[in-house]
């Protein structure tokens, strides 16, 4: 019987053969990512009284969640992380200026096909866009892995998602994923490895695949996966990952899937996740006209270069509606540089956007807090109650194009009307 990607990746990481779904193994991850929560790992390590680490080169720390520090306490946590990285020789340390951990590690060639990557962030599923098995864990587990190099993993069942295209103008991978999450539900893929296949996925850029894999988390996935192809290898080349340093793992053609889901991109309209759950998804026209106070274009789901370019395309020649705040937070420093050099920053500024420093920004509580009764339209991946300020505020999720159109009109709007 053929093997899924996850079976192969966990066999590689555990050194065991012929794993079957449900089996629990000790796996040795290739990289342990911890974001601003690293301070908790460091404190835990201190209390354990351990100072010998398994392999310091597998530690990656990125100060992305509260960047820059918002008070003396968080400044102290950042300082603790810097001091630790310096003392222990953590070379993959990225400070508050770098951007969102996932994006930073990928664009710098630190995530490679076939690898097992764990992170203190649930959206670590994103690493599947380069054919790695990425999954989120708690900070105790990261600390334990620093020390022992291993952690227990259950071999997941796999789900195959086929996306057919092309997508209609004004719809994007974000719309594909929101539709899919709406269809299968927030727990539709719990503990599963979600593999994306199909004609349209093959045409997607790595950035678009990142949006797919990132949002797979919102249907409960353990990890996500897009088969690495020439597109992925070219991305890795540019990111500086040596081709000899990794092995592409592909599922066997006769791999077993628990289920197969299909999204027909051709018939898709822009989708919106309505408060307060990500699987509460409707076509944009059903909520068009809802007043928004704030629009946030940011997060690891949709603040990559092409996301900013899409927003700029919609915003060009338009201005943000009076009374609406448009916050744009580029996902990384490299994305900011590209956007500054090719006119995207200018276009956004002229439209009235507030461009912040790269990082998680408002998605993780650095700014963008709302007062009672306010509404944000966001390109992020969560719309849970109270995530951005008041428990009595609302978050709608959609693509950068829908976000930009809604900023221009001051109400949730179908971007297809502006792109026509």
């Amino acid at each position, binding site marked *: 019987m053929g093997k899924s990607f996850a079976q192969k990746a966990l066999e590689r990481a555990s050194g065991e053969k012929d794993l079957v779904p449900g089996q*629990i193994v000790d796996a040795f991850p290739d990289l342990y990512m911890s974001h601003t929560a690293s301070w908790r790992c460091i404190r835990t390590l201190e*209390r354990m009284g351990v100072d010998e680490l398994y392999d310091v080169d597998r530690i990656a720390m990125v100060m992305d969640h509260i960047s820059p520090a918002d008070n003396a306490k968080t400044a102290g946590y950042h300082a603790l992380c810097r001091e630790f990285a310096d003392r222990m020789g953590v070379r993959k340390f990225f400070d508050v200026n770098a951007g969102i951990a996932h994006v930073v590690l990928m664009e710098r060639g630190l995530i490679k096909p076939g690898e097992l990557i764990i992170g203190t962030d649930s959206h670590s599923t994103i690493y599947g866009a380069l054919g790695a098995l990425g999954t989120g864990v708690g900070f105790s587990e990261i600390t334990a892995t620093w020390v022992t190099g291993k952690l227990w993993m259950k071999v997941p069942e796999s789900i195959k998602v086929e996306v057919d295209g092309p997508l209609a103008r004004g719809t994007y991978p974000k719309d594909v994923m929101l539709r899919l999450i709406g269809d299968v539900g927030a727990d539709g893929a719990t503990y599963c490895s979600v593999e994306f296949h199909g004609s349209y996925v093959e045409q997607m850029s790595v950035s678009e695949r990142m949006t797919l894999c990132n949002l797979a988390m919102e249907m409960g996935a353990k990890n996500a996966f897009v088969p690495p192809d020439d597109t992925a290898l070219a991305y890795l080349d540019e990111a500086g990952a040596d081709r000899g340093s990794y092995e592409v793992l592909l599922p066997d053609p006769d791999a077993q899937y628990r289920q197969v889901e299909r999204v027909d991109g051709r018939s898709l309209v822009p989708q919106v996740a309505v408060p307060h759950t990500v699987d509460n998804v409707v076509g944009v026209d059903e909520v068009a006209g809802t007043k928004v106070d704030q629009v946030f274009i940011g997060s690891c789901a949709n603040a990559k270069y092409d996301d900013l370019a899409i927003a700029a395309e919609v915003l060009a020649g338009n201005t943000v509606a009076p009374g609406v705040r448009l916050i744009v937070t580029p996902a990384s420093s490299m994305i900011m540089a590209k956007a500054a050099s090719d006119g995207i920053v200018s276009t956004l500024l002229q439209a009235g956007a507030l461009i912040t420093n790269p990082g998680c920004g408002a998605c993780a509580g650095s700014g963008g807090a709302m007062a009672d009764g306010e509404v944000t339209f966001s390109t992020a991946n969560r719309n849970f109650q109270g995530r951005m300020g008041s428990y009595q505020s609302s978050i709608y999720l959609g693509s950068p194009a829908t976000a930009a159109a809604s900023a221009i009109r001051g109400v949730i709007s179908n971007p297809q009307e502006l792109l026509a």
Partner: protein
Amino acid sequence: MSELVNEPSARRELAKGVVGGTAIVFGDDVNTDVIIPGRYLVSIDPAELAEHAFEPLGPELQQRLRASDVVVAGRNFGCGSAREQASTCLIGAGISAVVARSFSRVFFRNAINTGLVAVECPDAVDAVEDGAEVLVDYGAGTVTVGGQSFGFAPYPPGLRVILEAGGLIPHLMQQAKAGQRG
């Protein structure tokens, strides 16, 4: 050490293999932003976190939570972020077990790793009403509700050791000590 071994009273009961008491019942898809809002993640102290557990749902519910021993929930409990404080705050609030139809996977991992009993038992969830007495016999693999007993798949031995040690870090430290002695 006090921050690592979460809530000693819950552990004492664990040793006997049975935990439980009054249940508080939730629906499906309870997410981590509701369990412990992101703004409080600057703490890892169970007691401090417990003050803010379920804050978005209001003070009345929070009071009931603190007076309860078992969280009973529908599908996909703990969906959302990987924040370990989602289970730590429940321990701080005096919760000794969570019985749900299903868990999000990161929450499930975090529960084991912080020493919180988390069992999937849909039949028991069907039978529970708010405020009922729920006992989880963790060794026997049963949940008892009002005289009725429901089975659940016992933890794999590897995970059970972690849980019984009070979580992953205490488990590692026990191992290290044993190693030193040996």
